[in-house]
């Protein structure tokens, strides 16, 4: 800090500003030199990350300002893609609305249930816990497991749900669960919620095991009366790191719904009833080969997720107060 607070005493404002800048640069350089071992620690990850994760993202954002059909070189078009999205593309607005509905409903419910189930499971004995965790994580570990919902909600009489409702006499003819716009959104919401115990859930399971047992004993002395108070005053404040991780996972999962709607409800779905932003993106990126436009869609989705993350971050910092 001494290096920063020693600018030249004389001279004009501009000279003083330059001197301070120089001092700061020298200070930063000294800091970098002091921590050079740490840069070596970070270097392998940083290099691979920059090449294979960061660079493709940056290139995509740049492409969002171009017209790019994958065959010819990209042509710069400024904000035209973004203007078209909001002013000329009705389907995008439908997709945006559907994605927001899905995110607002499945995000918070999925997040909270992931934590609650992890918390319940955490108290089970060792091998029982491993097995129960497997059962709850099954929708994620079995890959495209949501396809089994396709068998359940099949629109003809062979679908599990239709077959059983017919047998019980509740319905007289098979219901087109995945084709009739009236039923599609609720069905997709159920499937997405069912898939919501993913990475965040496992992080919670691991995180609960790192909380010091002594804190609970101290809490008991301080008058914590039941498990819910223990949860709010001890467990949650000590898990803020994992809660943030889980929140980011919940946001990425709930905003990026697309595979499920496409495989279950078809592409495009009837009346675009469950057409999401990601479906719209796939439409332009993989079918029409308008990568510039698709990149603009991805960038909008990206900004929405970042905004959601900031909101959730504010909420998480208030826990336990």
């Amino acid at each position: 800090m001494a290096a920063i607070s020693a600018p030249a005493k004389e001279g004009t404002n501009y000279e003083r500003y330059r001197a301070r800048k120089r001092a700061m640069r020298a200070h930063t350089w000294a800091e970098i030199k002091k921590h050079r071992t740490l840069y070596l620690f970070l270097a392998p990850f940083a290099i691979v990350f920059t090449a294979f994760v960061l660079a493709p993202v940056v290139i995509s954002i740049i492409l969002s300002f171009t017209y790019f059909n994958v065959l010819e070189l990209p042509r710069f078009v400024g904000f035209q893609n973004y203007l078209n999205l909001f002013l000329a593309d009705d389907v995008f607005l439908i997709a945006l609305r559907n994605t927001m509905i899905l995110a607002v409903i499945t995000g918070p419910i999925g997040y909270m249930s992931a934590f609650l189930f992890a918390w319940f499971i955490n108290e089970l004995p060792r091998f029982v816990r491993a097995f129960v965790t497997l059962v709850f994580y099954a929708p994620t570990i079995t890959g495209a497991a949501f396809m089994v919902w396709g068998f359940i909600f099949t629109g003809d009489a062979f679908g599990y749900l239709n077959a059983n409702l017919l047998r019980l006499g509740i319905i007289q003819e098979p219901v087109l669960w995945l084709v009739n716009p009236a039923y599609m959104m609720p069905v997709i919401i159920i499937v997405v919620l069912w898939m919501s115990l993913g990475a965040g859930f496992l992080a919670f399971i691991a995180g609960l095991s790192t909380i010091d047992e002594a804190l609970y004993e101290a809490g008991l002395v301080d008058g914590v009366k039941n498990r819910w108070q223990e949860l709010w005053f001890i467990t949650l404040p000590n898990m803020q790191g994992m809660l943030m991780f889980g929140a980011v996972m919940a946001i990425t999962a709930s905003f990026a719904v697309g595979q499920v709607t496409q495989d279950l409800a078809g592409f495009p779905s009837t009346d675009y009833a469950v057409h999401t932003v990601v479906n719209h993106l796939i439409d332009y990126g993989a079918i029409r080969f308008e990568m510039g436009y698709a990149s603009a869609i991805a960038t909008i989705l990206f900004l929405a997720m970042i905004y959601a993350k900031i909101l959730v971050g504010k909420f998480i910092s208030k826990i336990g107060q």
Partner: protein
Amino acid sequence: MVKAIRQGNRTAVKRRARISRAVRKPNRSIGGDIFIWFLLIIFGAFFAFPLVFAINNAFKPLNELFIWPPRLFVINPTMGNFQDLFILMSRSWVTFSRYIFNTVFITAVGTVGHLMVASMGAYAISKYNFPGSKFFFGLVITTLMFSGFVTAIPNFLIIASLGWIDTYWAIIIPAFAMPLGFFLLKQFIDTVPMSLVESAKIDGASEWTIYSRIIMPLVKPAMLTAMIFSVQALWNNPQANLIYTEQLKTLPFALGQIMGSPHVPNIARAGTGAAATLIMIIVPILLFIVAQSNILKTMANSGIKE
């Protein structure tokens, strides 16, 4: 000192484990326990469905797969689907063991590399504040939120310009930098008190010793969880767009050819497909159970009193 801390931890873990077995946890009402067991059983049935479905379908004879009304549970279990699958495998142009080797190799090397590279980086970022550290971490979290569909083309171009197309490295090296594992490990290393690192330093431990002997054992649950994420991503990854040579292709790709795509299922081989699905998920599941049963109390904070 380093040894003493770890030794101290181990005895503390054992002592605590004994206590928790002997005494009922405080603040737990019996009514609450029953309520939670009830919830776990109800929702467990809901979540276990794909597993039960996959297991039962693999043992169903063809006529039961298309029975009306459809049944979840198998009536006359048969090994026929597996026999068909093995016959198909033995007749494939590339020996099936080659596909298995490719997948195991990619998954193992990718996961080990990812865990090492990500945990070292996460340690540096979590425990120290140096120029660029906060900014870099922000970048890692942010990129998690960008859709993978549009980055596929830039990603392909980068891998192609490195000349890695049609090699294992096209899949293995990018897997090292999975932001998910890095983020998870960083959040866990944050919970290890800095005083533990400082006291080891006073005793003359190098950064490498602190990282490998103190930090890593304390974040074992996070390492196991990151391992699950990485294995899951690599094991199920067909990556047909990056590898063309048939001999280098992976198990999910080979089995996918037997099963057909979700949109054009191979009806005649529905039973074989069900058997293939079960074989495909059995390895991640076994690994998952081993990893999960090793997630135990780590006592990151009990080695030292502040």
